[in-house]
Every structure is written in structure tokens, then in C-alpha cells.
């Protein structure tokens, strides 16, 4: 792979920012989603309204990048400041256009695992690897109108079968599976990884390759995916970050490099 002047995390953040539309309400978890939202606010989408599950709605994030969705920096100039119930009730009511989530594993229907690796339910109480748990991810997956998933793109994470389904995507992919389950939002909209931008086929709900990140090809993305991807007819090479996007990330948003890995 050629030597690019940006890290995989920077590419993910830039893609996450670009996919966001102006004047939308975005429910975001800790980490890269916060960087992406801030970048979008500083570029094409100044009207984005962030919602953090711990309680802050619509802050300007000008006190520095929050290190947690519950930390002090989420409240600067917030326009509503309550707690978890209020935040999730907003999502359930339909106020949140996008939810930004992640997980340790994803399947072809956009279902995510952030709970455990091992046999479920047999080994639930003694898993091979215990992960932190749902947090608010399954709530966002259930109730935000559309979700954007950020993933590290490795074969062991893009799996045919999840150990445990924490956050619902299109479930088994059958028509209207989400509606029948009682879920409100439309489901996963984009999966953004270090290797690709992916979406979901309208008919089959299967994950579909839309664009390849710099240095990747359709074949290399498939090679790092543990199930067969659909490939969009118009698959294209994704535009790398601009110098201005990189400057904003490195100098304005995350100057200490908390969430953005630096090229060594």
C-alpha cells in the first residue's frame, strides 16, 4: 500500500463527516463520531445538531473535543441538557435523523456485536472474550431514523455469523424484518471503514460496496470481508481527505491525537 499522508482513522472521520447532511440531528457515541460531527460542522454542515446520550443536545463543542459522551465538554452552549432518559426518548420520538455507532463485529445485514465473543447463549456467563456491552448502541440502532456504522475493516470482524447480536441492523434481511420486530428507524444507511464505504441493497438488505478507499480495490476489500459483498454498478474510488480537512482534524479538532492515530 502506498504511503499516504493520512491515517486510516483520518480517512474514516472525513468520510463520516462528508456523509452527514446539514441541519440534521445526529446522535453520536464517544470517539471517531464526535470528530466526524465536528469536522462536518466546520465544513459543509454548520447546522448539525449533536445529541449525546448522557444528556447534552446541540452543543458547539468549542471547549475542545469531548473524551466521552458524558464529559464536561459536551455541554458547552448546549440547548437542552437533561439525562439518558430524555436523550433516548428524543430518539424514540423521531427527533434523531442519524445515529453514529460501532461494534466489534458486523454481519452482511448490518447487525452489530459489542457484547461478547464465544458461544451464545451457552457461554454467555463465561465468554471467550467479554466486550463492554451495548451501551447506547442498540438504542440508537433501534430508534434513530438511519444509522451510520464505523468499523475497523478486518475479516475477523466482518462475519457471516455474529457471536451475539447487540445492535439490530436489517436482522435476517427478510422484507420488512425491522417493522415486524417493532423497530422504528429505517436501519443502517452506511458502513464506513478504513477500506471502503458500504451501503445496503434495497431488495436483499445485503451489504453492498459503494466506494473503495485510497489504495484499495474491489478485490482487496472483498478479501478482508468474511462474507460475500454485493458490488454497486457505479463503485468508485473515494476521494482522499483534502489538506483543509486534515488541517482541521489535526490542528482544530483533535490536536492531542486522542482518537486519530498519527502516521509514524
Amino acid at each position, binding site marked *: 500500500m502506498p504511503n499516504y499522508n493520512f491515517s486510516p482513522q483520518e480517512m474514516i472521520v472525513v468520510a463520516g463527516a462528508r456523509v452527514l447532511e446539514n441541519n440534521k440531528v445526529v446522535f453520536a457515541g464517544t470517539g471517531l463520531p464526535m470528530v466526524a460531527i465536528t469536522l462536518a460542522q466546520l465544513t459543509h454542515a454548520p447546522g448539525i445538531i449533536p445529541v449525546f446520550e448522557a444528556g447534552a443536545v446541540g452543543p458547539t463543542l468549542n471547549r475542545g473535543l469531548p473524551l*466521552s459522551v*458524558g*464529559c464536561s465538554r459536551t455541554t458547552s452552549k448546549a440547548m437542552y441538557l437533561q439525562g439518558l*432518559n430524555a436523550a433516548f426518548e428524543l430518539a424514540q420520538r423521531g427527533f434523531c435523523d442519524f445515529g453514529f455507532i460501532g461494534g466489534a463485529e458486523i454481519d452482511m445485514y448490518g447487525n452489530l456485536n459489542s457484547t461478547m465473543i464465544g458461544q451464545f447463549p451457552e457461554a454467555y456467563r463465561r465468554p471467550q472474550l467479554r466486550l463492554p456491552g451495548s451501551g447506547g448502541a442498540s438504542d440508537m440502532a433501534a430508534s434513530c431514523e438511519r444509522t451510520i456504522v464505523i468499523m475497523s475493516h478486518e475479516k475477523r470482524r466482518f462475519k457471516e455469523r455474529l457471536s451475539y447480536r447487540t445492535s439490530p441492523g436489517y436482522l435476517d434481511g427478510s422484507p420488512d424484518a425491522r417493522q415486524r420486530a*417493532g423497530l422504528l428507524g429505517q436501519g443502517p444507511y452506511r458502513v464506513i471503514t478504513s477500506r471502503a464505504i458500504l451501503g445496503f441493497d434495497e431488495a436483499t438488505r445485503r451489504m453492498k460496496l459503494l466506494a473503495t478507499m485510497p489504495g484499495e480495490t474491489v478485490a482487496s476489500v472483498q478479501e478482508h470481508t468474511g462474507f460475500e459483498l454485493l458490488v454497486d454498478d457505479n463503485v468508485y474510488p473515494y476521494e482522499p481527505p483534502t489538506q483543509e480537512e486534515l488541517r482541521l482534524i489535526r490542528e482544530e479538532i483533535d490536536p492531542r491525537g486522542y482518537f486519530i492515530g498519527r502516521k509514524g
Partner: protein
Amino acid sequence: MDWTGLSPDEARKLLVNKDKSKRDKRMDLARAVATFVRDGDNIGIAGFVNSRQPVAAVHEIIRQAKKDLTLSFHSAGLAVEYLAGAMALEESSCTIKRLEFAYWGIELFGISPMLRYLAENGKVELEDWSNFNMSARFKAAAMGLPFMPCRSPLGSDVMKANRAKLMDCPFTGTPVVLVPACHPNVALIHVQEADMYGNCRIEGPLFTCPEISMAAGYTIVTCERIIDHEEMVRDPNRINIPFFAVDAVVEVPFGAYPGNCHSWYYFDEIHIREFRSAGEAFRKGHKDSLRSYYNRYIWGVRDTDGFIEQIPYRQLKHIQQIELREFQLMRSQN
């Protein structure tokens, strides 16, 4: 239905028979924990991940070696990590029997070595929920209702290993999840300001602290400072927890350290990393650094003052300044 803390009927009865008068509830933390926390209790852990975690109260529970605890929380980091570390080092001291939770991790600092240790060795009963599920469970309890309908986690495996019930809504006919009320025996809550009667004023996100205080049988509040009652009632809209939902008021400066306490101090990244890496070393079989951490900061001191006295002044000054200054000013200084 097995109620793991108080059943709704027990919770109602306990409250009805409680003295709800407006009286001085100040006491020291050792007495508050000795009075209100019992072996076998279900403990509601307030705060959120590493923010306003009841660290001081948890350290005292460790010193008093409470056993067979059930911990109920949505997202927690430091408080539960400390309890689990004590159990991992000395199973004869503090023990956790069961977890009812949505997220246990140290967020930016990494996943939790202690949750991995407990879960992967089969040392605790687990019951996973989502954050909204847990906050809705506390809210149901605070409302005096046995359950709350909720959209999540429909379609998730989260429901296959907990006590949530799926039903068709009697009005729309579509599926909803019912999550059972969570009435902890005792709640641990850290706030910025309280008066002597227990009225609390919270800065920043409320998390689920008000609901947890009303859900629990007893509530121990630790606060950065006790303020005059007249000052508190000057702005009644700013009282987030009313006095009769509180049983003990303990002034503990730095009571959420090394976590974040909005408007008072930010995370101490240095200390959190020190504690987490000792836990990670323990999980990998090197037990000494975690033991010396506990000996130095928890078992070897009498109270939170003894813990904070050992933190370098410059570290404390730094985390206070982050809260006091605009970020731009901080950056131009560094």
C-alpha cells in the same frame, strides 16, 4: 419474576415507613456506608462511565469489605472497576455476585480488564441491557410502576439473556419490550452541591441520577461541597434531587476523582491510565502492581483525603484548570 433488589411492593413499603422529615443528614462516609450498605445488597451506581462516578463511596465499600453485591448501572467505568479489582485481589474481602448493566469500560482509555477478568473466568452472574433499558428501569421504579415499555432492544440478543418481556402493544398491536423496574437497595450518587437536608444541584448532564435516587431504598449522596440551604432554595428549578429522596449527605471533595466532575475537575488521564494498566497487568497474571495500587490508595488510607493527598498537586491543578478555562486558553498555554 425474581426482583434482585427490592420488589415494587417492598420499595413502596420501605418508603412509606421512612422518616421523610427535612432534617440534617450530614455524616461521614464510613458511617453512611456502614449504616446503609449491607452484604447482598443491590447497589445502584450513578454517574456515567467515568463521569461523576461515586468513587469515594466505592472505596469506602471496599474498605468495609461488603460482600455478594449486585451492581445495577447503565454505563460505568471507574466505580465498578475499583470494586472488581478489590474482589480480584482478595475474594475474601469485597465480592460482586451479579451485574445488571449496559456498558462497562474505560472508554478512551480502553476496554475494562476487570470485566474481562470476572466474565471470562465465570466469576459473576451477568445480565446485559441497553443504556436506555437501564435508565428506563430506574425511571419505572422512580414512577412507582413495575415496568416501562421501550422500543429497544427489539431484534437484539440482549433480550435473550435478561428478564425483559416482549408483548404486542394493546393499542397498536405492534411489538414492544417491557423492562422491569429496578429498585436498588441503596444508590450511590456523587453531585457537585447538596444542602444538609439532601437537596442536590447537579452541573452538566444529569445522567440518570434523579431517577436512581428515587428508585432506591436508600440513597447516599457524596458532594463536592455542602452549600447553605437558603442558597439552594433561592433557585428551586435547579434542585435535581429532592431532600426526601436522600438518606445521607457526605461532603467529599474530589469524590469522583480520577473521573470527571463537571465544572470542578476533568479526567485525570495520568491516574486513570495508572489504575487501568495495573488492572490489565493483573488480568495477564502480573498481580503486584494492582495490589500495590490498592495498598497505597485504598486499603492503606482511612478515607478519600488519604487518597487525594497522594496525588501530585500539579495533576490536581491541571484537571481543575481544564474545567475553569476555555479550551483555547488551555491550548495557548500548553
